[in-house]
């Protein structure tokens, strides 16, 4: 084999390394709301639902719209992930969506601040609709950023407490806990150790425990994530320290981080039939309204109870609230049919019967105050708890941010460090977390 010169070596190294790199650059076309919604037109609607029953529910919803607006036709495209939607919103084009529906509220700040979705305030005003009187408070909050309302709630999710009634009876517990102190006592009573592991765990408190994320815990402590200048409040608002302390106490009381993590690794996944609440391996579960149907489908060998999550002892009067999130809908800035698109968005998100029918089919919480009270809602009596949580004015959500959910993952990351004992100084850790959030937001602006 011939020898290689120095330049050849560098050239070969460079060529090999170049293979690591790739990039893309796209633009955004101009559009507007100059179309006539009374004329014949076809809209493209992208949504994320994928299960056959859900896809049918969306089709029925759209069919109802087309019946009410015979001149507007809708091409429905399902199973679209946020990645695909973001790409389409950036590039626009003939096949790009006019209306999108995303499962996550985390991107609302990015959608609004970047102008990817149009501000719907003028549309609401033109239609004489007051969003504050139409949607529950928390849902109203997570669909806007800095006064720009670029999204509308399209059904919602409310978080509550599921509990194993049979296990409660065996442990001599007569009612679900209302405060975190009661909750800790009950969780300990419900925990049955078996050597290094558990025969039954009262509650999985770890932040990796499916829905026991920091923001879902924090919802019960009504924190103020940002001050009026938009700076992180994590280091200042005592609600954060209180929430982290409650969770850490639970972790320590129920066996410690490492033992709980090992037990968690033995358990089934969140979306499968072997979810530990279904199997009775965990007696209480923080979860969304969808868990009820999923749990009942597995025909568990115990009675399921549903209640609001506990509240801090000093906020006992707020019992009944919960964390709220949900699906959102919006109009693409690249759409040239924005007035027609508004008719579709308005129908799907505001028409009480349409919202109720959709909620009945999808088993999510309705997203308008009128629909929450509708007698046409069909549900298991236990589902009513979630309707009440959604309508509760004390219920909370995580606000939209310019860099999406990054601040939530930063808080969650500190949560992992704190629950595992890697971080021990709570005050210092929260202050560092706040600084990191501010730095990340400054980077995104």
């Amino acid at each position: 084999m011939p020898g290689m010169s120095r330049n050849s070596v560098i050239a070969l190294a460079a060529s090999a390394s170049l293979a690591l790199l790739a990039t893309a650059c796209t633009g955004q076309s101009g559009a507007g709301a100059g179309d006539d919604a009374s004329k014949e037109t076809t809209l493209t609607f992208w949504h994320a639902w994928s299960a056959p029953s859900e896809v049918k529910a969306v089709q029925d919803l759209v069919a109802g719209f087309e019946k009410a607006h015979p001149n507007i036709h809708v091409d429905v495209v399902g199973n679209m992930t946020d990645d695909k939607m973001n790409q389409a919103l950036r590039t626009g084009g003939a096949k790009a969506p006019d209306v999108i529906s995303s499962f996550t509220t985390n991107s609302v700040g990015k959608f609004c601040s970047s102008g990817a979705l149009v501000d719907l305030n003028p549309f609401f005003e033109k239609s004489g609709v007051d969003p504050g009187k139409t949607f529950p408070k928390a849902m109203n909050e997570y669909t806007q950023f800095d006064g720009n309302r670029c999204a509308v709630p399209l059904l919602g999710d409310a978080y509550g407490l599921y509990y194993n009634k049979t296990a409660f009876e065996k442990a001599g517990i007569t009612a679900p806990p209302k405060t975190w102190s009661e909750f800790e006592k009950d969780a300990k009573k419900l925990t049955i150790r078996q050597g290094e592991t558990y025969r039954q765990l009262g509650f999985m408190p770890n932040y990796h425990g499916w829905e026991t994320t920091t923001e879902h815990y924090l919802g019960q402590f009504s924190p103020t994530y940002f001050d009026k200048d938009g700076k992180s409040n994590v280091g200042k608002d005592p609600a954060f320290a209180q929430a982290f302390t409650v969770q850490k106490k639970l972790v320590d009381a129920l066996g410690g981080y490492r033992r709980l993590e090992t037990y968690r690794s033995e358990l089934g996944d969140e979306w499968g039939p072997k979810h530990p609440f279904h199997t009775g391996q965990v007696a209480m579960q923080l979860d969304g309204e969808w868990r009820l149907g999923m749990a009942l489908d597995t025909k568990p060998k115990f009675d399921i109870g549903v209640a609001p999550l506990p509240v801090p002892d000093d906020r006992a009067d707020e019992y009944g609230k919960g964390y709220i999130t949900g699906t959102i809908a919006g109009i693409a800035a690249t759409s040239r049919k924005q007035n027609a698109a508004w008719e579709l968005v308005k129908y799907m998100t505001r028409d009480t019967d349409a919202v109720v029918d959709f909620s009945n089919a999808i088993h999510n919480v309705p997203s308008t105050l009128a629909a929450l009270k509708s007698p046409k809602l069909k549900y298991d009596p236990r589902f009513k708890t979630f309707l009440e949580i959604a309508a509760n004015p004390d219920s909370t959500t995580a606000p939209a941010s310019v860099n999406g959910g990054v601040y939530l993952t930063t808080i969650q990351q500190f949560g992992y460090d704190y629950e595992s004992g890697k971080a021990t100084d709570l005050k210092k850790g929260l202050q560092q977390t706040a600084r990191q959030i501010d730095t990340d937001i400054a980077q995104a602006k």
Partner: protein
Amino acid sequence: MSTLTLRAKHRRSALRTLAFLSPWLIGFSVFFAYPLISTVYFSFMRYDGFKPPAWVGTKNWAYVVEHYPLFWPALRNTLWLVVVMVTLRVAFGLGVGLLITRIKTATGVFRTLFYLPYLAPPVAATMAFAFLLNPGTGPVDSLLDRAGLPTPGWFNDPTWSKPALTLLALWGIGDLMVIFMAALLDVPKEQYEAAELDGASPWQRFRYVTLPNISPIVMFAVVTGVIQTMQYYTQPLIAGKVASGVIQGAGTQFEPGYPDRSTLTLPQLVYNLGFQRFDYGSACVVALVLFALSMAFTALLMRRRGGLIQAGER
């Protein structure tokens, strides 16, 4: 022949050369040169894919290096994997290659057995390993426990997650085994015979006959191993996700690196920054760090070991 005719002939020759080279030149420009220049350009821009790019100077560089909390853990993990995983893979691949070339019976069966794991799709293989190494229910820890040995947390323990990934990489050693087998079978038999006549021990035959003959292949394995490890994305991401129990569903937040950022690698940061945070500028910074690192490693290895030059050819 006049000067004019000579010049015309040279020009025609140059054009012909260029024409033959053009497919490569076009490919190189479109797929290598343009992305590289764009990456450098965007590393100095604020660009989220929605608004037009805006010049920010070295702000993205300062953010990634000084303030992005995942950068240094990812860099440390990537370097750990480059040093430990690549070394072990090359040593193990060579060892298996030597073993297979010495086996006289059922050679085909053994070759197939060792090569098959390499064909397993990375996602499926990683999920299978996460199952086997599950600290609560996995058969590996059950066996270790029965034998009275310590039972590591593997993908659930930050101390053991990278060794677990290394085990996974060693399991799929088929590619290197085949390359080393071909190289080992190519070593002239006369050299072994001469060494034996000189009274060389098996180790001396390996050290002074086998190794010099296959050194370009060893170097090839190391260089490609380093580049592959720099691009290591799928296995650590899947292992972290499966072990964490967090299935990235609609509306769920998932930061890669479980447990405790121990499975974070630089390519995961490119995705995290570029496609989860829409901070393309910072993603380009991480891509350029990867570029610089892989170039430095490759140049260093090629220069120190004399590149792809066989013994006796220097």
